């Protein structure tokens, strides 16, 4: 009976603190998308700014920001961040260039520069941004508790 009571109390706590329960996952992830806008300043100079995606039209340049943080109390290691490209977005490169890409739906991975795509006639050609279906960062370093970072890449709305 006491045992049961304790269990119940534990579940109640878990339910009440819904967000707290999620935060208990040792690694926190956050994905944000911004739109690049050209703005003309008061002095007439044009500047590129990042804005919330209020209106997003074909051809717009998007900036994806993936934030990660170890909120647990143990170091995390061997972690990899995988981001499939949304169907309507063409990949346009990352900020650090450390990612590997897949052009076959995540089956095989490699550097874009050395990745080949097989044409319908069996010949091969070098892959380009438009072929990328997935991108992945394999992060070698250990992430100590409280540590985090962000990964940034670009895309264009098809």
């Amino acid at each position: 009976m006491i045992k049961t009571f304790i269990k119940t109390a534990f579940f109640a706590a878990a339910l009440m603190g819904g967000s707290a329960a999620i935060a208990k996952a040792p690694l926190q992830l956050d994905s944000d998308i911004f739109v690049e806008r050209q703005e003309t300043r008061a002095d007439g100079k044009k500047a590129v700014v990042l804005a919330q995606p209020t209106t997003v039209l074909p051809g717009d340049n998007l900036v994806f920001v993936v934030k990660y943080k170890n909120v647990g109390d143990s170091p995390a290691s061997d972690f990899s961040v995988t981001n499939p490209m949304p169907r309507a977005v063409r990949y346009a490169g990352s900020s650090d260039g450390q990612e590997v890409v897949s052009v076959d739906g995540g089956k095989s991975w490699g550097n874009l520069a050395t990745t080949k795509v097989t044409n319908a006639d069996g010949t091969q050609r070098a892959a380009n941004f438009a072929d990328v279906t997935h991108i992945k960062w394999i992060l070698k370093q250990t992430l100590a508790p409280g540590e985090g970072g962000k990964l940034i890449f670009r895309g264009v709305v098809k």
Partner: protein
Amino acid sequence: MTSKLKYLVASGVISAAMMSASSAFAAGTLQGTDIDNTVSVDYQVGGVAQTQETATDSFKVDRKVIFTVAEATPTGTTNVVPGQTAAVTTFTVTNTSNDTLDFSLAGTQLAGGAAEHGGTDNFDITGLQVFVDSNGNGTYDAGTDTATSIDDLAPDASVEVFIVGDIDISQSNGDIAGVTLTATALNDDGSAITASTDTDANTTGVETVFADTGRDGIEAAGDDYTVGAADLTVTKLSRVVSDGVSGSNPKALPGAVVEYCIVVSNAAGASTATNVAVSDDIGAIGNVTFDGTFTPVMNGTVVTGDTCTPGTDNATYNGGTDTVSGTLNDIAAGETRTLVFRVTID
């Protein structure tokens, strides 16, 4: 919220990405399409693989209203003749929006000023009407192409639109009538489009942005009609062929043979003249008699000084009326045709 992250990626990489652009639609991703970006992370703690974490960010692709109105190829003025009915100029409306749109159409006339293909507008066509090429054959078919607005033009689709009108019989060579076709984008139910004025981060609804020239959902193109009337001039040449006395330089003595040449010329840039009938009353010349030994000929094209090279087609002499006559072949712009006959001096 805005922030500056313009040095994220070297610009060389961006332009390379642009060059390799190859989406299925030139118009781009259709409006209302969700872009869901899901990222996942795999990791280990203490050497033990942990449950994968994921995060998602979503928004909808908004509606970009962009289209063009252009004169259909081949471009250039539309040549018309006085009295022509249903003279047609053709335009192409192309929808490069990422949504299906309707368009209302309006045809207007220039009131003077420079016409599309040079020259100055100086008259209006009558009975101007606008029709859509409903059967898609690129040619105006009266009674078939009856729609006066464009219904449901899909992304990347285009349709031809005709301005049709009549040319008054009083117009003359070189007159120009300029016309303009204006298309206004509408929702696919025919209602007016309202552009979004919302500045909030609306990631769940579809908003509309005008991306056409002027950002107003209205596009226009001009074309013009140029009247090409025939512009004929007639001259009558004569030369003494022989006088029965002189070996050379024959004089117009009694009994001398005189050749008359009627020269009909059509001015450069004019329309081809057809059914040009020429007749000359020899009795009206006076003191000459038709020379029956020389059959009148016509359709010569070469005139050198006062000498016409006779054509090869026969003209007609009517002894009853003492008249030479004939109907010349068609005379195109810049061309000349002649009718030659001979008389003797009484």
